[in-house]
């Protein structure tokens, strides 16, 4: 029952808070803070309860599948719920000082709460159609945030985003219709219990739709302009959290609902698209002149890392320790990307406010004026490159080890190449920040600079705390990913 109350706080709380923000106007950020505090407490309760008694399941309305909707907080879900509340809290602290105009304030605070609520709903839902509604809510709030951007390209970016998203969701939904036809249920576990001739086509359609929404290469064209064009605190939410929702849905489909419908070739295709994302995103990031565009292309590349997992978890090695390592490594990578990417975007937010630009040339020498945030940027970059000590390093280490153990070293080498590219595209902003030039800058409160620093430290700490993260991820993990231990 405690678990159910905690879930209720995380699912209904943000939505109620959004309505509160809408009514509170000027006091919107206070309402959001109260919801975030309650949400953080609820995550702690869920985490603790889950480690003691296993995944927490709630049958909404008491109905249960197949008629009703089932929610389940497993390790994967709780990990993302935790990452979301931490990132939301950090964004809150920075955004409170941005969004001063009535329009920005009145749109941002309710939208950010809805975005958080949609994310939480997706992480715990076990129902294909409920996931669709959650994903639509997430997308529309994300589009609202992009449209809040003031630059000339913001409207165009929001428009491209909405077009891709519209089609992505319909293609996904077409797959859901075929699943319901073949299985007579929308519940992930019940789908896993049966088989239907419609499975292959349905999975293909749902995967294509979600790939568009997750910005998996080559469906990523909408992401860089949207994430670079949104107001920076919103970019932190969009880049750190939003694409992970589609990824989690893909993982649940491939490894929980239809593990038998996925031939090895399809698993390899997913990883190949991931590799394409790593290379293309990395090369494009190298060519950008604005910090936020570098960070946005970096997100394209980092999302690619997540898909390298597919042949390692689902292939011949399924169920072995290697598969479990690849699983844990990938999810730890997703968490540390969320923390580190939010940190660097919040740095960008502070710097844009201080110097009015995010051109690399204008950032020169900033480390002297804003050392704390520049240090935070450097630490977060280390995690994104996958160097020790960081969550990014442990993630890459686990997946690479799995790839060698399973006799698929090629995928491990792709990760290594991605790390080199990340080092290359982070070199230019770092070189600019720490250049020996006098900066021209307004003072920023040190306390604000501590916000991205806290996120960067959390990303680094994941590297040390990989064992608790691994244990968390094993709770309720699909049979494929339940290994003996690292």
């Amino acid at each position, binding site marked *: 029952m405690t678990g*159910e*109350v905690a879930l*209720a706080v995380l*699912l*209904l709380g943000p*939505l*109620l808070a*959004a*309505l509160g923000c*809408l*009514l509170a*106007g000027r006091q919107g950020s206070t309402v959001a803070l109260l919801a975030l505090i309650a949400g953080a407490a609820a995550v702690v309760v869920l985490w603790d309860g889950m480690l003691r008694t296993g995944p927490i399941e*709630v*049958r*909404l*309305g*008491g*109905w249960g599948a*197949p*008629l*009703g*909707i089932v929610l389940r907080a497993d390790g994967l879900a709780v990990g993302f719920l935790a990452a979301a509340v931490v990132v939301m809290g950090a964004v809150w602290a920075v955004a409170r000082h941005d969004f001063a*105009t*009535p*329009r*920005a304030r*009145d*749109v941002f605070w*309710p*939208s950010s709460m*809805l975005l958080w*609520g*949609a994310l939480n*709903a997706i992480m715990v839902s076990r129902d294909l*159609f*409920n996931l669709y*509604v*959650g994903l*639509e*809510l997430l997308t*529309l*709030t994300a*589009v*609202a*945030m992009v*449209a*809040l951007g003031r630059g000339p390209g913001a409207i165009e970016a929001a428009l491209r985003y909405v077009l891709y998203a519209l089609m992505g969701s319909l293609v996904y939904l*077409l797959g859901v219709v*075929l699943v*319901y*036809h*073949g*299985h*007579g*249920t929308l519940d992930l576990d019940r789908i896993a219990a*049966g088989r*239907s*001739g*419609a499975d292959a*086509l349905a999975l293909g359609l749902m995967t294509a739709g979600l790939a568009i929404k997750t910005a998996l290469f080559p469906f990523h064209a909408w992401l860089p302009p949207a994430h670079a064009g949104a107001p920076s605190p919103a970019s932190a939410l969009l880049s750190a959290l939003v694409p992970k929702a589609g990824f989690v849905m893909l993982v649940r489909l491939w490894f929980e609902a239809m593990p038998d419908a996925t031939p090895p070739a399809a698993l390899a295709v997913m990883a190949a698209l991931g590799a394409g994302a790593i290379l293309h995103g990395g090369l494009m990031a190298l060519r950008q002149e604005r910090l936020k565009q570098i960070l946005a292309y970096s997100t394209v590349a980092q999302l690619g890392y997540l898909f390298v997992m597919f042949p390692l978890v689902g292939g011949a090695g399924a169920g072995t320790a290697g598969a479990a390592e690849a699983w844990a490594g990938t999810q730890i990578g997703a968490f540390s990307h969320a923390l580190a990417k939010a940190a660097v975007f919040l740095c960008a937010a502070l710097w844009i406010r201080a110097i009015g630009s995010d051109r690399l040339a204008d950032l020169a020498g900033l480390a002297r004026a804003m050392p704390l945030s520049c240090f935070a940027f450097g630490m977060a970059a280390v995690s994104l490159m996958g160097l020790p000590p960081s969550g990014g390093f442990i993630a890459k280490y686990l997946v690479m080890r799995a790839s060698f153990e399973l006799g698929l070293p090629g995928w491990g080498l792709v990760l290594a190449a991605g790390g080199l590219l990340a080092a290359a595209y982070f070199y230019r902003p770092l070189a600019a920040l720490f250049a020996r030039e006098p900066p021209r800058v307004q003072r920023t409160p040190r306390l604000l600079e501590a916000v991205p620093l806290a996120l960067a430290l959390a990303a680094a700490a994941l590297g040390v705390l990989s064992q608790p993260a691994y244990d968390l991820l094993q709770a309720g993990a699909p049979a494929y990913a339940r290994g003996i231990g690292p």
Partner: protein
Amino acid sequence: MTVLFDLVLCALMLLAALAAIGGRGLFRATVFFVAYGITVALAWVRLGAIDVALAEAAIGAGLTGLLLLGAVARLRRAGAPEFPVRAGLVPALAAAGVAGATGWVALRVPGAGGLWTEAGEALPLSGVENPVTAVLLNFRAWDTLLESIVLLAALLAVWALAREEEWEAPVGPPLHARPGGVLEGMARLLPPVGIVVGVFLVWAGASQPGGAFQGGTVLAAVGLIAALAGLVALPRPDSGSWRTALAAGPAVFLLVGASGLALGGLLLFPPDWAKAMILTVEVFLTLSIAATLALLVLGPPQPRRMP
């Protein structure tokens, strides 16, 4: 005879869809789209799904058509050029491939039978007699709750498009109805009728086809006509009373859903109280849906200057 009717209906649907997509001229395409929506609603009637037919006619054809017409007018004012369709083999093959594979699988793979039995068995416990309403507001209430929030998120996205200096202006385009004109006459006559129809749809939804979304759409249409005729002043986006109207439905739904925790579970409606709880939710939801839909059609606040 009925198969012949269905054959004609399907042919009309396909022709209207083609004309809406490939036809010349944006205005004409939009008119064909509305016609298409009406044929689709008819198809739902033929399938015996009156709830969906009502939703498709009111929302899929009506409101969507209204939004499209507004967009056509706006594009014309902006002077955006039109251009012909690009041909191409690859898109045609891709579209035909998806459609063909879908049709093939849908016809060849045996259906699992759906959830008829489960829904039928649970219906007496749901508090309502209309199985569709039971699914929407009880069995899958979480979907419907999120859906009402989706409308609100869309409105926020539309409001995000306001220019900073326009935030203090009323929403929607400047409207002028000639005093004593046809529109004003209609606007004085229609609202009472529309409100009765809207309220009836919500009330009837418990046992017959209808419900909060269909009823809310009718009420929104009534409000829009009254606004078009200048009988109702358009609100500013920061109007407190309008924001209360937007939030009331989802808020009541959330609170009733949370109160389930005290009664045994999240979003739980005990059979004895289910009817009262669901009707309470529906009344407030209808109000909020009507407000949200009307504001979605009116769009962001816009400058009042004359063209």
